[in-house]
């Protein structure tokens, strides 16, 4: 059971989870990043960064 890194509440994932997806914690609102699908690992998602390229 993968839990939130902030408040330890259980996390819920969509069936078609994608690599790198951002999953909000329903309890504390923290944003978790899917670091790998198998094994399923999450980490705290980095702050928003403006993206500009050609």
């Amino acid at each position, binding site marked *: 059971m993968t839990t939130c890194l902030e408040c330890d509440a259980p996390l819920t994932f969509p069936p078609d989870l*994608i*690599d*790198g*997806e*951002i999953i909000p914690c329903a309890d504390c609102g923290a944003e978790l*990043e*899917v670091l790998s699908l198998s094994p399923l690992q999450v980490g705290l*998602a*980095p702050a*928003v*960064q*403006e*993206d*500009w*390229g*050609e």
Partner: protein
Amino acid sequence: MTNELMVVKLGGAAGIGLETLCDDVAQLRRDKRRLVLVHGGSDETNRLAEQLGHPSRFVTSISGHTSRVTDRRTLEIFMMATAAINRRLVEQLQARGVNAVGLSGLDGRVIQARRKEAIRVIENGRQRIIRDDWTGTPERINAGLLTTLLDLDLVPVLAPLGISESGEALNLDGDRAAAVIAAGLKAETLILLTNVPGLLRNFPDQTSLIHHIPQGEIESFAQFAEGRMRKKVLGAAEALRAGVRRVVIGDARQPAPVSAAMDGQGTVIG
């Protein structure tokens, strides 16, 4: 007047007439103008990526910018596509007696940029983080090398590549690269050429051109800018904050596009 420096971003859009543009630059050089040219490459990169069987993926960032996912293979395709543009420009300019020298921001660390470790994007409605992206935000330039080239009476022509602290080549947005060069060289004027008359109050109505934006009101006018134009307006704001006196968003389809923008045709900011 002549030691005033002008940095010109040549719109990457296909609509730009290379020949007429180079005629204009040649005339400005005969008038002893100091010039740095910066170009883009998004259309050519798309075509080359398609031909090489590695089509580019576009994602929308949280703040609504559409940008290319630049994995390593895409970066190499980007390096080739922008080099083709760079060489063609230098060739056309040399044929008109303009002593152009083609570089990218990677060379001599001309444009130092910060690689974005992670980018938040929305793809098919799902928010996610992309890590293997070779895109950067331009931060500083090696003004010494560019000034030396200018003092040798050369015209630097820059491809939109930067270099990270650790020496990685990075895909840069051409408009922001031009803005950081104009700021770093204390240029008089930054000209951003594109294939519309300038910032339009209600796009795509070409008659709704906004002629002038005072420096203090850029944020409020930014609401009129969509997509790539939005990047140009924010690049203009950065340049002005860093001391560039005037930014002009001009129409590349004019007979003499750079001279027309110099004379204030288009959207003058500052």
